[in-house]
């Protein structure tokens, strides 16, 4: 009696792009991130400043936080196949959370219109409270991924990078 043939080995269950490709694609993602998180806010703040209107938050804060979040987000994309993905995701969300909390401490914007007696105060603390949900949920996701990578390394790769 002939023993049953052994099953053929599984083909590679996932297909991870090369590091060079991920760096290139990550760099391409960095551009719109910098435009959205740094370029547009700084342009808006500069416009206000040029009209003599006080700023709700300093340009330095927006630039530093925007660059940090954009770079961390890019790094997270590049290291996604590795065990560093979870911790970098947590770091990205943590920095975003800290940035929103800084904005929350200055969440009443007082504007005095130059050349007039008009003064306006706009509060947006409740909106920032809701925005806090976004990085908070992403932070939990990063923690879960970190745990998953410790408990079962490479388990997620077939689903993150299907063949």
């Amino acid at each position, binding site marked *: 009696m002939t023993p049953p043939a052994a099953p053929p080995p599984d083909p590679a269950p996932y297909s991870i792009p090369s590091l060079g490709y991920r760096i290139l694609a990550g760099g391409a993602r960095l551009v719109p991130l910098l435009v959205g998180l740094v370029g547009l806010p700084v342009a808006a703040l500069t416009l206000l400043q040029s009209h003599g209107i006080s700023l709700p938050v300093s340009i330095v804060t927006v630039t530093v936080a925007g660059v940090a979040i954009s770079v961390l987000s890019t790094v997270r994309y590049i290291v996604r196949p590795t065990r560093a993905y979870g911790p970098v995701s947590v770091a990205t969300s943590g920095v975003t959370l800290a940035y929103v909390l800084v904005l929350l401490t200055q969440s009443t914007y007082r504007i005095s219109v130059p050349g007039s007696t008009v003064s*306006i105060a706009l509060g947006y603390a409740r909106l920032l409270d*809701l925005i806090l*949900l976004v990085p908070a949920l992403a932070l939990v996701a990063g923690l879960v991924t970190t745990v998953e990578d410790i408990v079962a390394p490479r388990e997620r790769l077939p689903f993150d990078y299907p063949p």
Partner: protein
Amino acid sequence: MVPRARKPPGLYRLARWFRRLSLVVLIVLILFLASVGYSAVELVKSSPQSGGYSAGFGANDTVAVTGSLSLSNPGFYPVSGFSLNLRIQNASGTLLGNLAEGPETLPAHTTTVFPIALYLPITPNGPAASLLTTDQNLVLGVWGNATFAYLFPVSLHFDENKSWGAPFAEFLVQPGSPTTANGTTTVPVTVSFSNHASFAEVGMLEVVLLSSDGTACGAGGFSLNVLPSGFYYQTQAIDLASGCSLQDGSAEAAYTGSGATIPLPPEALP
């Protein structure tokens, strides 16, 4: 036989669920902010319309400024807790009167009209008494508070200078030389003023002449029909009480018309 796709492990699905929830919250907030921005622009474009303002004498020794303020909210979100406070001060900072409206809710896609009625008390020696006889610049302070789109408390303040034209500007009571005939002393009294107000003065002006110790020496009534920007000048003989002197005396006048009696500030006689 079609192979079944492998089910992702539990931790992977949990992390994915949190990531997707985070993304959904972000998208919902972006859409919400976009609609709030649109609504705010529409609200600002439909600037408040004030109309039908008129000033006149009100009951209880007041000057009444009445009118209406129309606010349109063409956006998607209500303006809740809208309240408006107006305060009128004279140039030296003395409070003459104030007004509070609201709080009201302006629902989306509606126009709300607020009646405005501001009463400035002009009792003799009161802070607003000078409005009757002195042109002046008034400072109108406006405070508005509201919450827009459930999340955004907004407050607004501005000051505006308004020029006030007095209805009895340069009011003057001028007695002439008294004459005595048949035991009665009579003095010709000339009353003059300009009406710088935006309303006509139709009625009677009762003038009482007082001696230096405040004793009433005589009184007379002057008929008024003075249009805005009009000038009034009339002389009338008034009988004086026996032995009463107008030396260093004063005159008190009260205007009666439009259902109100308005005392004017006392005038020293020249």
